[in-house]
């Protein structure tokens, strides 16, 4: 029966594209940590946030994919064409910094997940760094896409490990729809972090570019929208199971803070080798997958926005900026993990701060762009949709600003 189930899941993934990949990369090492931490410390309480988060995610992702389908241009191209070079340059610089922070945390995820399997980071990180570089630079688009789709299906491991832990399903269901608000600072910080990790600037750029790359046009947009919405829902389904797994395995036996996502996997150990194994494998998969997508997405976005040659089908000397930046992001991203005593936490906090500063701009640019008749013709936002979009953006900006404040506070402390 498992076999059949897995087969069907795999078939389902095969017909999906941009929305699904974006959504899955969203559950990267940082995301898994945040959800695990939420579950380990607060149990089932944070589950209610997933529905509003899904809605916010859908609103922003839908706008990006619509812009991609209608204009046939990436978000960085549109920002360049409509807001000029200086704005683009600032946005791109911030994006590189934020994404660099994310890449580092992906490599940290790779290191800690493979250490659970007894593989030293001094072996795993360089090998994975080379693999990531090689896969994208030397692989063909088709082979890479296949690997990504397989990678997407591996997220099922979280659902299975969530089930294996045998959590309290009744509580899980109740708290999924019952909002619990507390004026406890660490609880608020947790809520803010959950929103913060689920909506990141790079996703908007990546999704729109992927829609354009796939050649989806306004005509096929209706199908594409369904796919994007499905992707958003799946992201949070995975998040749900991560929280539930950690709530059932760790919180139920005594709420505590966890160190990193690998720590959460260790917490699952009493529930059998499988739960532990699946959770760790899932973490490795998510980290590796995101480590493939993030650097590539970053260089594509930057090169297109600033007008440099880009594309893996180009040779090194034809697209030097593209390849150098790509190589730099991977090498320096991976190398940092190997420096003994490097303050990773501080670096991730810093990247969250820049993330929070960049996100409002990206979202505001998106709404401004999508309302331009010249670009979107009859596909601009309706008045109601604009109301929803601006409200979501305002909410998101408020929450990210809170996250920035908390991150800065943490940075002062450390």
């Amino acid at each position, binding site marked *: 029966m498992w076999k059949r189930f897995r087969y069907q899941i795999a078939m389902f993934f095969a017909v999906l594209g941009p929305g699904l990949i974006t959504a899955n990369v969203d559950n990267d090492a940082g995301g898994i940590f945040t959800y695990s931490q939420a579950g380990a410390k607060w149990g089932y309480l944070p589950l209610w946030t997933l529905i509003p988060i899904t809605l916010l995610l859908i609103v922003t992702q839908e706008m990006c994919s619509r812009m991609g389908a209608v*204009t*046939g*241009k990436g978000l960085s*191209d549109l920002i*360049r*064409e409509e807001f*000029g*070079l*200086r704005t683009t*340059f600032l946005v791109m610089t911030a994006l590189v910094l934020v994404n660099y922070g994310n890449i580092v945390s992906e490599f940290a995820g790779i290191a800690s997940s493979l250490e659970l399997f007894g593989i030293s980071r001094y072996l795993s990180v360089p090998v994975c760094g080379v693999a990531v570089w090689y896969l994208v630079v030397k692989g063909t688009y088709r082979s890479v896409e296949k690997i990504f789709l397989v990678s997407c299906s591996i997220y099922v491991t979280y659902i299975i490990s969530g089930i294996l832990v045998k959590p309290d399903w009744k509580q899980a269901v109740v708290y999924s729809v019952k909002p619990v608000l507390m004026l406890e600072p660490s609880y608020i910080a947790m809520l803010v972090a959950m929103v913060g990790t689920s909506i990141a600037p790079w996703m908007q750029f990546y999704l729109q570019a992927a829609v354009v790359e796939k*050649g989806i*046009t306004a005509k096929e947009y209706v199908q594409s929208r369904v796919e994007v919405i499905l992707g958003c829902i799946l992201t949070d389904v995975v998040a749900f199971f991560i929280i539930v797994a950690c709530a059932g395995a760790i919180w139920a036996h005594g709420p505590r803070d966890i160190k990193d996502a690998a720590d959460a996997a260790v917490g699952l150990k009493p529930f059998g080798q499988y739960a532990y194994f699946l959770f760790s494998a899932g973490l490795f998969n998510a980290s590796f997958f995101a480590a493939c997508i993030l650097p590539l997405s970053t260089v594509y976005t930057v090169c297109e926005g*600033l*007008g*440099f*040659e880009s594309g893996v089908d180009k040779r090194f000397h034809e697209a030097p*900026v593209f390849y150098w930046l790509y190589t730099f992001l991977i090498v320096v991203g991976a190398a940092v993990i190997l420096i003994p005593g490097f303050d990773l936490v501080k670096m991730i906090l810093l990247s969250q701060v820049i993330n929070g500063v960049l996100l409002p701009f990206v979202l505001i640019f998106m709404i401004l762009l999508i309302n331009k008749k010249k670009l979107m013709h009859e596909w601009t936002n309706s008045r109601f949709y604009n109301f929803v979009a601006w409200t979501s953006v305002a909410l998101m900006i408020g929450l990210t600003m809170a996250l920035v404040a908390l991150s800065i506070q943490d940075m002062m402390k450390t």
Partner: protein
Amino acid sequence: MADQRLFFTELLGLKVFDLKGRTLGVVKDAAIVPLLDPVRVDRFLIGSGAAWLTVRHDQVRSISLDGIHLRDEILTPYHSDEYMLRVVRDLLDQQIIDAQGRKVVRVTDVTFEIQQEDGGEVLWVLDVDIGLRAIFRRLVQGVLPPRWIRRLQGGIPPHSIRWEFCNILEPDPQRRLRLNISNRLLEGMHPADLADIVEDLTPEHREAIFENIDSEVAAEALSEVDPDIQASILESLETEKAAEIVEEMAPDQAADVLAELEQETSDEILEEMEHQPKQEVRELLEFKEDSAGGMMNTEYVALRETATVEDAIQALKSNEELMETLNTLFLVDSNDHLTGAVPLARLFLHEGATPLRSLAVDTLIDAPVTEQQDRITELFDKYNLLALPVVDEGRKLAGVITADDIISVLREK
């Protein structure tokens, strides 16, 4: 100024002085009127207060980094002119096609040359600047004095495209006419390069190019484009134009493209086509895509087995359009049954009266229309073929598969 060049980043914001040296305003934009002159800046748009004024090129006495001095003060208010190509609005940060470098690039800056004309100075567009040096100029423009910028940028390699190799993208056909944008540069490119460029463009620009370009060039380029994009281009075009392009394509490629389209659209296009190509394409459409029938094309030269070298030369003369790729002649008997294949080069080594029969290859390799694609590629590999004749159930010659078809198949795997 020793250097007679001026960058647009320097022109923008330059002060404009009247005869008495009073400041009238600053340059907000510059416009070329391609119908009058494709390289000369025809007007400067000057912002003074809320209103914009227009300075014609013949009203300018001198242009330098220190400002523009006029020789005539009768300025007219700016009103939008559809015949103008405005640098800030239409060129800067937009994509254009670099016909010489054969790629799509984004304009970062424009380089002008200061020229003497009728006792005044005018600007000619020299280059469109892309790359790091121009990005540097844009970023520090207005922050550092222009002369410093010139000195500092020296360390960064320049990257520019000559203005005459730039093809501006404009989806609106009316405006294309007004701006005098031709497709001459694109039509001169190799179809495969044009195809690569088209793949990089947005759907509306693809449509604009295929709508206007010569059908023969369009057909050749379209054959090289990625199948998904082929379909979306044909769907976006007027049916008549689409039919014109498909007619010009080799029948096997035309059939492949039409097979990608929705049934309804492909029927409409077929309906518009002329009788002869329509028949051939219809027949090819009947075959499965991954069979010999689906891979073959019907453009080949076949002669009776009794024919001589002289006859063959005659036949080739009447099929001149096939010459670029043709490498084998086929022989058929009186029932059109395939009986032999003659490598083209052998014709040159024999007298006109030599019967073709004697020049045919020893072992004739052919395949039935139903043969699987994998098997066909095997045959090409095993026998080192350049062309493989395909025969129908009655062994009549139906078409030919050529090595370039095989390369495409292998590349897709």
